[in-house]
């Protein structure tokens, strides 16, 4: 039972309950940081770290958090982990920190983290909450990485800063502009909902 619950908790955010394409959460950062694969991966690692540990921490203290100040506590815990990510990047990966700029700080306002804290961590034990946080972060990450892959490749002909496509390729400038992220995200949601999720609904 416990293992079943853990597995279910882990798989849901990766598939049907994916925070990005099913719940349409965390769109702001999806649009902002997917212009380059490298930045996206660093951002995703940051988000995974923050969702996992803030959900775990909040779940640990959930029985003592007074209901009327729970959102303040959630924000504070999340902000603490985000600032830790920011400081660590700044100290050890200054180049990437410089490129990500304000977006690391904006993890605080990432709706996924707050949403999962509210909906899951406050009602479930720490172990499950850690798993849910990790899975939500991963669910967010793989969508972003797919989008960033196509945006960087089509927008600049490069991947991870390395030239992949030859001279014959004309860069789709719009792909690296914010508008490109809207197109990519929409196409991604369309494909996922059209191909995968629709089948399940027919089966019901």
């Amino acid at each position, binding site marked *: 039972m416990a293992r079943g619950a853990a597995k279910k908790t882990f798989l849901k955010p990766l598939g049907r309950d994916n925070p990005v394409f099913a719940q349409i959460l965390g769109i702001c950062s999806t649009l902002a940081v997917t212009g380059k694969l490298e930045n996206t991966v660093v951002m995703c690692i940051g988000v995974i770290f923050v969702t996992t540990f803030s959900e775990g921490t909040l779940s640990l203290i959930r029985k003592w958090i007074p209901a*009327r*100040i729970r959102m303040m*506590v959630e924000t504070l815990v999340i*902000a603490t982990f985000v600032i830790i990510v920011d*400081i660590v990047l*700044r100290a050890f990966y*200054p180049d990437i920190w410089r490129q990500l700029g304000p977006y690391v700080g904006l993890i605080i306002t990432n709706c996924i983290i707050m949403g999962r804290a509210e909906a899951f961590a406050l009602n479930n034990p720490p172990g499950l909450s850690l798993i849910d946080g990790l899975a939500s972060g991963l669910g967010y990450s793989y969508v972003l990485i797919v989008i960033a892959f196509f945006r960087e490749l089509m927008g600049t002909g490069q991947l991870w800063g390395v030239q992949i496509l030859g001279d014959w390729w004309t860069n789709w400038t719009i792909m*690296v*502009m914010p508008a490109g992220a809207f197109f990519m995200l929409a196409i991604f949601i369309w494909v996922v909902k059209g191909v995968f999720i629709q089948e399940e609904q027919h089966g019901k």
Partner: protein
Amino acid sequence: MKSETFFSQRIFPLIFMGAVTVVAITLVTGIYLLTEDQVLRNELLFERQAILDAAGIEFDPDDIERVYEQRVTKENGWYSVQLPDDERGYVISIIGAGLWGPIEMMLGFYEDLERMTGIAILSHNETPGLGARIEQREFTEQFRGRSGPFEMVDEGTAEEDHEIDGLTGATRTTVAVGEIINRGVRNAPDTVRGE
């Protein structure tokens, strides 16, 4: 069921919030203090790297400190640099308006304060993938050995000595960078030799 006393409704939340805040601040402050030196060192290193870049001095990324100590002296608002052929060079820092925010640069000059040894971008907020290409070598290298004032032209069409290839898709950033550099070129003699 828990009874709703004055304490549990009004006082306990305050105490709880206070306690959580203290823990959070302690944690963040601790990590900040642990990494503070590293962060300062990174910033200094980045600035020194930009100065050497602008002066056109080649260096090993692990060796920035030593090369800098050997060749650069900080003056009042500018840097005096010993160039590779023992000539004297100057590097000045300049800041100006880009498309989205300020662009901070280092401009390097030969002794005549006209011909440039190069430029380096310190910070900017230009569009990633478009205007942000001003950081890339293909763009910055164009200024080496040239004299201003410069004219920014369409990417791939620069022919004359004062013409610089702009960046397609980032016209406004290119124009802004051109203006900042031209202002720096104009003011360089005043900055270095005094009013």
